[in-house]
């Protein structure tokens, strides 16, 4: 005997039912209909209420206001902006400021986080205790509390402009921020940048060449002298030929404040310090867990093969730890970005402050403005999630697990 394997029957009705109602079949469909009806009803109520409410007040819904001129100023803008620009430009300024503080915050949070994690893993008892203390203290205090504290501390610690702490007469530190000479482009800038880029590319090429040499011929090439020459030497030479790439506009005390130069405002400093130290405490724990998740035997196996400590770390421990570290790390990055909205408490002009704050109260377009604000954060978060799932998928594939 022996029954040949056949194709399953099509059972279209069943499949359709599954697709529409899940395991529960028609019951599921019914549940969905009721649920959908409730949702639709709620949505309807919300929209109709909002519409009547807005109508009775003669508020024009829509985004027409984006073209109006904002006529207020913002004290830190990454793109040129003045009071006569439109609300749309305010929005862009806000988004950019949010991104700026996020990027800086993420950079320092990662840096501090890794350092603290290393401290906690250090065989030195005192250092690991200090790391532990840091993590416990920071994690158990609200972020808003910390940002306000830093703002206060920063402002209290710094002198007024006339008593600025000055370094070499060109860098100044006072309660208006850190003032540094600002670069002005000179004719030599283009070749300088070109050479810098060239040096960078050449170094990368060199690195891959060195790796190939190692793999192909077993030749170890020390590349750092070349890299140094490329990155420092080349631009230096262009400077000799074409003159300085830029000159500096030095800040000078004029009236109340410094004129000229570039300035980092204390709000930004306090916010980034607050955000990065706070997030760093969480990152430190993630990194520690990640490194500890790599079995001790891995390092030992590496050493017993004769790999140096550095090489073993680089080739064996870190890649394995990264798998554990990266997903929660991205989550922390996202949290930091969302938390940057606390800027509103200390007057840093981020999205929530200039857009969902000032612009909202000047235009009264609450629905539109809050929706776009949430939308921006949502987009950032969805984008990050998407990137993360691709990363996770690739990792799983490469592990063949």
């Amino acid at each position, binding site marked *: 005997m022996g029954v040949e394997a056949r194709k399953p029957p099509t059972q279209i009705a069943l499949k359709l039912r599954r697709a529409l109602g899940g395991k529960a079949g028609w019951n599921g469909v019914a549940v969905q209909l009721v649920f959908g009806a409730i949702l639709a009803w709620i949505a309807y109520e919300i929209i109709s209420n909002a519409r009547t409410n807005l109508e009775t007040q003669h508020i024009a819904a829509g985004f027409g206001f984006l073209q109006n001129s904002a006529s207020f100023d913002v004290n830190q803008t990454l793109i040129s902006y003045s009071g006569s620009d439109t609300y749309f430009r305010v929005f862009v300024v806000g988004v950019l400021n949010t991104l700026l503080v996020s990027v800086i915050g993420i950079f320092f949070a990662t840096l501090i986080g890794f350092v603290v994690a290393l401290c906690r893993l250090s065989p030195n008892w*005192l250092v690991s205790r200090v790391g532990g203390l840091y993590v*416990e203290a920071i994690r158990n205090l609200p972020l808003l*509390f910390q940002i306000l504290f830093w703002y206060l501390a920063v402002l209290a610690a710094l002198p007024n402009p006339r008593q600025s702490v000055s370094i070499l007469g060109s860098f100044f530190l006072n309660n208006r921020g850190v003032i540094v000479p600002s670069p002005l482009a000179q004719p030599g800038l283009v070749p300088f940048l070109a050479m810098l880029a060239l040096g960078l590319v050449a170094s990368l090429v060199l690195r891959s060449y060195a790796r190939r040499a190692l793999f192909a011929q077993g030749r170890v090439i020390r590349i750092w002298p070349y890299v140094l020459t490329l990155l420092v030497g080349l631009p230096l030479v262009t400077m000799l030929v074409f003159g300085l790439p830029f000159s500096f506009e030095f800040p000078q005390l004029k009236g109340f404040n410094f004129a000229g130069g570039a300035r980092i405002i204390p709000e930004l400093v306090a916010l980034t310090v607050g955000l990065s130290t706070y997030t760093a405490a969480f990152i430190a724990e993630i990194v520690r867990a990640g490194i500890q998740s790599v079995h001790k035997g891995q390092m030992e196996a590496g050493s017993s093969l004769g790999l140096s400590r550095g090489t073993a770390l680089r080739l064996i421990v870190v890649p394995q730890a990264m798998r554990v570290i990266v997903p929660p790390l991205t989550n922390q990055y996202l949290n930091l970005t969302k938390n940057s909205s606390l800027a509103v408490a200390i007057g840093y002009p981020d999205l929530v402050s200039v857009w969902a704050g000032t612009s909202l109260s000047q235009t009264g377009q609450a629905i539109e403005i809050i929706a776009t604000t949430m939308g921006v954060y949502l987009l950032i978060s969805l984008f990050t999630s998407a990137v993360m799932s691709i990363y996770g998928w690739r990792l799983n594939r490469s592990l063949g697990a």
Partner: protein
Amino acid sequence: MTDITASSFVREDLVAERPAPVKTAGFLGFVRTRLLNSPTNILLTILGLLLIWYTVIPTIKFLLVDAVWSGKDRTACLAENAGHPVGACWPFIQAKFPQLFYGFYPEAERWRVNLTFALGAVLLLPLLIPRLPAKGSNAGLFFFAFPAVAFFLLHGGGITGFGVSWVAGLLQLFADSISGVGEVLVGLSKASAAGPLLWAIGGAIALVGTLLHWVIFPLIWLRDQMQAAGQGLWLDFLITAVIVSVILFMLGGGARAGSRPLIASLATFAGIAAVIKLMGLDHGGMPIVDTRLWGGLLVTLVIAITGIVASLPIGIALALGRRSTIPLIRIFSITYIEFWRGVPLITVLFFATYMLPLFLPGNFTVDGLVRALIGVSLFTGAYQAENLRGGLAAVPRGQEEAASALGLSWWKTTSLIVLPQALRHVIPAIVNSFISLFKDTSLVSIVALFDLLGSLRASFADPVWTTPSTAFTGFAFIGIIYFIFCFGMSRYSLFVEHRLNAHRRN
């Protein structure tokens, strides 16, 4: 190969244990091995000491050594009056203490706040100690009875109706809104192209609404009769108690099941009656204290505790929804979770505080604090859902199969088998999100609710106490409060985690 003749070797005299030549134990050994065993480590130790020297010492100096301990106003905390550089200005805290703890809660009524939190602590502590028995009824008291009692204690006021009135009111609202939708559709049909269709649907819906009105009419009539009779509350209470008990009795299998469920139900109602009588809820209860007057730690705790209690059911529903095979429910759950996790809490709070009424019917108002509570709960619910999802995934599939093989329905399987196990797995995660919730309550100060941090900020505006160290004193004080709560909770979560792991091992 060479021929190797192995030398035979026997050790007759065993080597005795002797101490290590270099001391590696004891205090000195500890210092040597853990602090000074290599040049790098020596350097690190020095760095660590420097770090401590420059952070811990100044802190202690500020908080204790240089602090001013008594005074009436700012003059006491000025360096020229104190005669030394001034650290913490503790009299400021003394003066603002009531505000930081109760906000503007009337002084004469503050015992109510204290009582509420004492009550909460008495109920919560046994819940947290794993060894104590009767977790079920304890949790019931804490999660259901306590919030109700706390509400009437803190807010005051009484009730005029009970079960019957509430159900009647709710059903009436429901029926009204169905009729409303029908009428709107009928109204729309005049202007729309698909007029007749809309008209038909609208008519049908309106009819359903009318029918519903007829069905619930007896209940409403009963309510109105009771209200008219005066002392409606007790009558209503009695009727509710009888109805609920009878239903429970029937569901429990009638006389066959014995009188236990009946007794339990009656006991519960007796308890409720005692509480109503004790708090005088039938006579309007205690004087109402508007939530605008609440502040400080009170608001912080109210938001945090409500948030956690309310977010759990939301989280459970969403986590189950996310696992559901019914497409719409799953899609809704995923969208909901991703949405709330993607936006910052303060935009949510802003929305809830200032914009919500825009989306509600005109004469429908919700208290400001309640709105923040709703925002916080919905927000935290999404995070709880993700925690719970992990817990649900940790329950083996076989558990569900075994339960269905015994004939348990999906609901019973979920509530009796899957959820209890899943919840056990995620206690540490839940405690951790409670910690972040507790910290996040500080954000309500941005939407003009005066929680602990908000009260502190408000107190800075008082010119009577403006000194250079006022702000730092305030921050130090509430920092310590936040730290005590959060640190305590994080230790507890560690403790539970260890216990869980110990459980899993055997």
